[in-house]
C-alpha cells in the first residue's frame, strides 16, 4: 500500500535521532555528517537498519544538512543516502511496509527580508536535493526541524514543483508554542494546510512531556494527520559532550499519553535511539487509532500573526490602493515605497487587522511592484495582507513570495476567472474573496447573488479548496443610483451566513458614491452589515466614524471583553465630537505637540515637532504662499541652523533627526499639493549599503537629510552588489553615489564597488561613510570623499552639484 493510503488510517512510526548516534560512532563536532554517505556507508546503513528492525515505517535518509551551501556534490550525496536507506530496508525485510523519507532540514541561512537568502533561491536549493532524492527512489519528502514558516513554505513549494511524493512537515516550537520567527501553532497549520501538505507535526526542541500543550493545540486546529517526534529530553552538556536524559521506558510512557491526544504518526528526534523507537512502538501500536477530523476554522496569517475570520468582524484597511488618489499614483510611478509602507503602518496603528494591497496602475510593471510591496510590507508590519489585483501574474508573484496564508481579492463566477485564480489558491493556499457576479453581469437581487455564490463554492470543491477558505462579497453598490441596493447587499450578507454557514466581505464605502457626508452613510451601513453577519469590512480604519461603528458594535455584541477595546480607544473622547486617543497618534511620531500650536514653520522644524511642521506648511499653502518660497525662506534655514549646531557639537544626533523628520513631514504636504506637477530637484544621488553589510540605519539617515535638501535619492537598500550599483548609476546617469559600510569585513565590497564604477562609469563621484570609515581608509580604497555624518554628505553633494 502507498504511504498516502495509510497516512491517517493507522499508526505509523518515524525513526529517531541520527546525529547523536553518529557522534557516538566518532562523528566530530562540526564534521558534516552527510559525507559519511560516501565515506562510511556501512555505519550509515547500520543506523537505518536498526530503525527498520525496531519497527519504524518511515526512516529518514542521512540528508538533513545536504544542500549546495555545504556541498558541491549534493546530488551524489543524496542519491547515495537514498540507496543506503533502501538497502537497509531490503535487508530488514521491510520492502512492503516501510518507506524511505528524503530528509530535508533548514538551509542554515535566514530568508530575506530578515536574512539574506532570497525566497526563490531557497526554493531552488531545496529543489536540487528533492529532485535527486526522488529520482533515486525516495518514497516521501520529510521537511523537519523548521523554525521559520517561510523556509518551510519554500521547501514545500520545491517538493510540489519537483515531484508527486507525499510531503510531511514538522516544525520546532519553543515552550510558549512559538516558532523562532514568532509564528503560532495555529498560523503554521493554516499556512501548511493551504500549501496542501500531507501531514503536519512537531519535532526536536525538547522532550515529549513539554510537547503535550503544543500537541493539544495542533489537535484542536489541524485537519491533517499529526506527527510528533520529540527529543529524548532537553540536551545538556557534560564535559563538552551533549547528553540526553530520557530513556526508552520513560519516553514511551509519555508518548503513550500523547498518542491519546489525537496523533497519527510518532517517532523521535535528537537523543532518541532504536531502543526508544522499539519501546514506543510496543506501547502505542495496540492503542485504538482515531482518524483525523476536519476542523472548520478560517485563518489568514502572516509570519507571526493569525487572524481568524468568523468570531468577530475583521477590519481590512483599504488605503493601499491608487484608485482616486493622485499622491498614491505618483508614489507608484516614482517607486516611492516608503510612502506606500507609511500608508500601511498608519492603518495598522488605527486598528486594521489585515491590509488590502492594490498597486495596479496601467503604466507600471504591476507584477514586480506587487512582489516588491508584499516583500517590503512584510518586513515592517506583522499584519496579514489581502492581495488585490486582476493581473494573474501579479497575483501569483505576490502569493509565492508571501510569508503566511494571504487573503486573495478576488475571484468571481466567470469560468475564465475561476480557471485563472483557483489553481493558484489550490497551490499556494489563501482565503479567497468571491464576487457573486458572472458572465451575465451583477445580479440585482440577493437571490441572483446567492446563486452565483453557490457556483463559486462548487468551483472551490472542484479545485480542492476548502469552503472554509471562501469569503463571499455582498457587493455594496451606491444607493444614489439605486435606492434598493443596500437592501440587496444586506440580504446577501445575511443569507451567506444562514444558508452556507459562510463568511462575507464588503467594500463598505461603495454604498455612498455620489452622496455628501459619505462617512455618515458608510458608518451606519457598516453597523447594519455587521448586524446582518458581515465577517470582513474593507474600510479606511483612519476614519473615526468607521472605527466608532466597529468598536461600538463589538462592545454592544459582547465581542469586546469588559469593553476594554472601547475604553482604551475613547478614554479621551470629548462630547463635542472630537475623537482623540486611538487614531490621533500617527505612525511612529511619539512626540506629542506640547504647546506647539503657535510655532512657525521654521520654529517647528528647529524643535522637531512633526505634526505642527506639517500643519504650518499647510496653513502657509492655504494662505496662498508659494510652497517653494516657504521651503527656501523657512524650512531650509531652520534645517541649516540645526545642522550647523550638530557640526559644532552643540546639537546631538537625535535632535538633528527630529528636525529632519519634521522637515520631511512638511515636504510631504508640499508633495501632496503638487502631486501632478513636476518637482524641482537639485540632482540625483544613489545610496547603498554595500554587499555583505546589513546595517543600514546610517544610510537611511543620510537619505532623509538629502531628500530634505532637495535631492532625488535612489535608495538601493542594503547588501547591494557592485553590479547593481553600477547599473543604476549608468541607467539614470547619476553623478554621486554614496556608499556605507559598518564593518571592516565589508569595506572590501566598498572597494570593489568603487573599482567597478571607475571602470564603467568614471565620471560618477563616490562618497563613503560608516562606523569604521576614516579619511585615510577612504583615500586608500579610492573614494572621492569621506563623510563623517549626514550633514557632511549634504555639503559634499551641494559642492558637486554646484549649489551654494
Amino acid at each position, binding site marked *: 500500500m502507498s504511504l498516502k493510503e495509510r497516512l491517517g488510517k493507522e499508526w505509523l512510526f518515524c525513526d529517531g535521532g541520527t546525529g547523536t548516534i553518529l557522534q557516538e560512532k566518532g562523528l566530530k563536532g562540526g564534521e558534516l555528517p552527510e559525507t559519511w554517505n560516501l565515506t562510511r556507508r556501512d555505519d550509515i546503513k547500520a543506523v537505518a537498519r536498526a530503525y527498520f528492525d525496531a519497527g519504524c515505517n518511515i526512516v529518514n535518509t542521512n540528508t538533513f544538512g545536504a544542500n549546495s551551501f555545504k556541498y558541491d556534490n549534493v546530488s551524489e550525496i543524496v542519491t547515495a543516502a537514498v540507496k543506503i536507506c533502501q538497502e537497509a530496508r531490503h535487508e530488514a525485510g521491510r520492502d512492503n511496509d516501510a518507506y524511505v523519507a528524503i530528509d530535508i532540514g533548514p538551509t542554515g541561512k535566514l530568508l530575506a527580508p530578515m*536574512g539574506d537568502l532570497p525566497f526563490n533561491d531557497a526554493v531552488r536549493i531545496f529543489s536540487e536535493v528533492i529532485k535527486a532524492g526522488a529520482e533515486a527512489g525516495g518514497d516521501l519528502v520529510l521537511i523537519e526541524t523548521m523554525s521559520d514558516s517561510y523556509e518551510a513554505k519554500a521547501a514545500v513549494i520545491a517538493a510540489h514543483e519537483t515531484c508527486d511524493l507525499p510531503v510531511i512537515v514538522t516544525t520546532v516550537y519553543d515552550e510558549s508554542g*512559538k516558532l523562532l520567527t514568532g509564528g503560532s501553532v495555529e498560523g503554521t497549520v493554516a499556512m501548511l494546510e493551504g500549501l496542501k501538505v500531507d501531514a503536519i507535526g512537531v519535532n526536536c526542541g525538547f522532550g515529549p512531556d513539554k510537547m503535550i500543550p503544543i500537541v493539544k493545540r495542533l489537535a484542536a486546529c489541524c485537519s491533517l494527520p499529526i506527527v510528533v517526534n520529540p527529543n529524548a529530553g532537553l540536551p545538556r552538556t557534560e564535559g563538552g559532550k551533549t547528553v540526553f536524559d530520557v530513556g526508552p521506558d520513560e519516553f514511551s510512557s509519555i508518548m503513550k499519553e500523547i498518542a491519546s491526544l489525537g496523533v497519527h504518526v510518532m517517532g523521535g528526534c535528537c537523543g532518541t535511539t532504536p531502543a526508544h523507537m522499539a519501546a514506543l512502538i510496543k506501547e502505542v501500536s495496540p492503542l485504538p487509532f482515531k482518524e483525523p477530523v476536519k476542523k472548520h476554522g478560517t485563518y489568514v496569517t502572516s509570519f507571526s500573526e493569525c487572524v481568524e475570520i468568523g468570531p468577530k468582524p475583521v477590519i481590512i484597511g483599504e488605503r493601499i490602493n491608487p484608485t482616486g488618489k493622485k499622491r498614491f499614483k505618483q508614489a507608484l510611478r516614482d517607486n516611492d515605497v516608503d510612502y506606500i509602507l*507609511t500608508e500601511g503602518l498608519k492603518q495598522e496603528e488605527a486598528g486594521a487587522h489585515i491590509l488590502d494591497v492594490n498597486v495596479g496602475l496601467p503604466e507600471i510593471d504591476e507584477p514586480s511592484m506587487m512582489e516588491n510591496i508584499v516583500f517590503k510590507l512584510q518586513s515592517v508590519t506583522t499584519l496579514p495582507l489581502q492581495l488585490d489585483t486582476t493581473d494573474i501574474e501579479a497575483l501569483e508573484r505576490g502569493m509565492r513570495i508571501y510569508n503566511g496564508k494571504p487573503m486573495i481579492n478576488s475571484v468571481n463566477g466567470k469560468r475564465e476567472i475561476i480557471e485563472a485564480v483557483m489553481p493558484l489558491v489550490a497551490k499556494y493556499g489563501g482565503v479567497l474573496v468571491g464576487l457573486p457576479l458572472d458572465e451575465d453581469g451583477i445580479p440585482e437581487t440577493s437571490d441572483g447573488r446567492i446563486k452565483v455564490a453557490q457556483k463559486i463554492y462548487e468551483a472551490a470543491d472542484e479545485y480542492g479548496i476548502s469552503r472554509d477558505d471562501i469569503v463571499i462579497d455582498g457587493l455594496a453598490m451606491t444607493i444614489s443610483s439605486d435606492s434598493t441596493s443596500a437592501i440587496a447587499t444586506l440580504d446577501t450578507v445575511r443569507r451567506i451566513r444562514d444558508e452556507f454557514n459562510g463568511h462575507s466581505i464588503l467594500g463598505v464605502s461603495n454604498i455612498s458614491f455620489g452622496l455628501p457626508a459619505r462617512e455618515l452613510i458608510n458608518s451606519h451601513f457598516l453597523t447594519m452589515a455587521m448586524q446582518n453577519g458581515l465577517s470582513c469590512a474593507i474600510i479606511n480604519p483612519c476614519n473615526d466614524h468607521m472605527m466608532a461603528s466597529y468598536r461600538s458594535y463589538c462592545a454592544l455584541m459582547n465581542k469586546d471583553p469588559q469593553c476594554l477595546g472601547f475604553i482604551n480607544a475613547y478614554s479621551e473622547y470629548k462630547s463635542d465630537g472630537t475623537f482623540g486617543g486611538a487614531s490621533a497618534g500617527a505612525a511612529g511620531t511619539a512626540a506629542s505637540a506640547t504647546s506647539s500650536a503657535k510655532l512657525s514653520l521654521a520654529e517647528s522644524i528647529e524643535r*522637531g515637532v512633526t505634526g505642527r511642521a506639517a500643519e504650518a506648511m499647510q496653513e502657509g499653502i492655504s494662505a496662498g504662499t508659494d510652497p517653494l518660497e516657504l521651503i527656501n525662506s523657512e524650512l531650509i534655514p531652520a534645517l541649516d541652523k540645526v545642522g550647523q549646531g550638530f557640526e559644532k557639537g552643540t546639537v546631538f544626533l*537625535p535632535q538633528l533627526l*527630529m528636525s529632519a523628520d519634521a522637515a520631511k513631514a512638511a515636504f510631504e504636504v508640499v508633495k501632496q499639493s503638487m502631486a501632478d506637477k513636476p518637482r524641482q530637484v537639485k540632482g540625483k544621488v544613489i545610496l547603498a549599503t554595500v554587499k*555583505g553589510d546589513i546595517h543600514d540605519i546610517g544610510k537611511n539617515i543620510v537619505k532623509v537629510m538629502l531628500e530634505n535638501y532637495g535631492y532625488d535619492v535612489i535608495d538601493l537598500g542594503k547588501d547591494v552588489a557592485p553590479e547593481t550599483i553600477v547599473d543604476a548609476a549608468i541607467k539614470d546617469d547619476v553623478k554621486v553615489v554614496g556608499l556605507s559600510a559598518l564593518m571592516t569585513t565589508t569595506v572590501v565590497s566598498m572597494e570593489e564597488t568603487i573599482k567597478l564604477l571607475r571602470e564603467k562609469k568614471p565620471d560618477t563621484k563616490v562618497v563613503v561613510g560608516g562606523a569604521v570609515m576614516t579619511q585615510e581608509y577612504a583615500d586608500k580604497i579610492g573614494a572621492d570623499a569621506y563623510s563623517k555624518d549626514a550633514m557632511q554628505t549634504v555639503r559634499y553633494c551641494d559642492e558637486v552639484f554646484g549649489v551654494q
Partner: protein
Amino acid sequence: MPLGVSIPENEVKRYMGYRGPVDVSPETDAMIKKAVSFLEKGCSPKYVSKAFPVTVEGYSVKLADIVIESRALARNLAGCTECVLFAATAGMACDMLIKRAAVTSSAYASCCQAAGAAAIEAYCDLINEKIKSEYEAKGLFARPRFSPGYGDLSLEHQKDWFRLLDITRNTGIELTDSLLMVPTKSVTAIIGLSPDRLPCVKQGCEACTMSQTCAFSRKE
C-alpha cells in the same frame, strides 16, 4: 517582561550619540521610553552556551579543536583552565521594530537602534552573571567576557563559535558570508574561568585596542 531584564536608559542615550550631561528634550525622552518599553516587552531573546577546557600558551588560546591567536584574549584568559562560549540574541522582533521605525521617523529609528543595542548588552550581562555565579559555586572565577571582533580577536572566529555551539539551530542567529549576525542585535562571546580570583581587571572600552577610533567608546 520577555526580555527578562530592564534596559538602562543612560546606555541608550550613549548609543544615540549623547556625550556628557545634556538636556534631552521631552519629545526625545518620550521616544526613548517608548522604544525601551516596546523592546522590553517585544523581544524574544535566546541564548546557547557550552563549557570547554582551555589552555593558554603565549598568545595562543586552545579550546575544543581550535587555536586562537590573539594577544588581547590570551591576556584576558591567562590562568584560566575552563571557559564558556556563548551566543545570545535579542531576536527578530527587535530588527523589525528598527526597520519599521525607519519608514516613518528617522529619530525614532535611532532610538530603537540604540535601545536594541542596550537590550542585547543587558541580556548578555544577565547571562554573564548567571554563568559567573554558577561557576563560583564550583570554585572557578569568571573573567570579563570577550567577543570576536573585539580588540585583536579576529571576526573570522565567528565561524568557530557557530560550529561549536550549533548557534543557528539553537538560537536562530545566522552568520552571513561577511561574518555579520542576523538578527543584528546578537552577541557571541567567551568567558574565561580560573581557579584564581583576579581583582579589578581592566575591561570594556578601557581594555579594547580599538577604543581610540571607536565612536561609541566610553570617554569622559
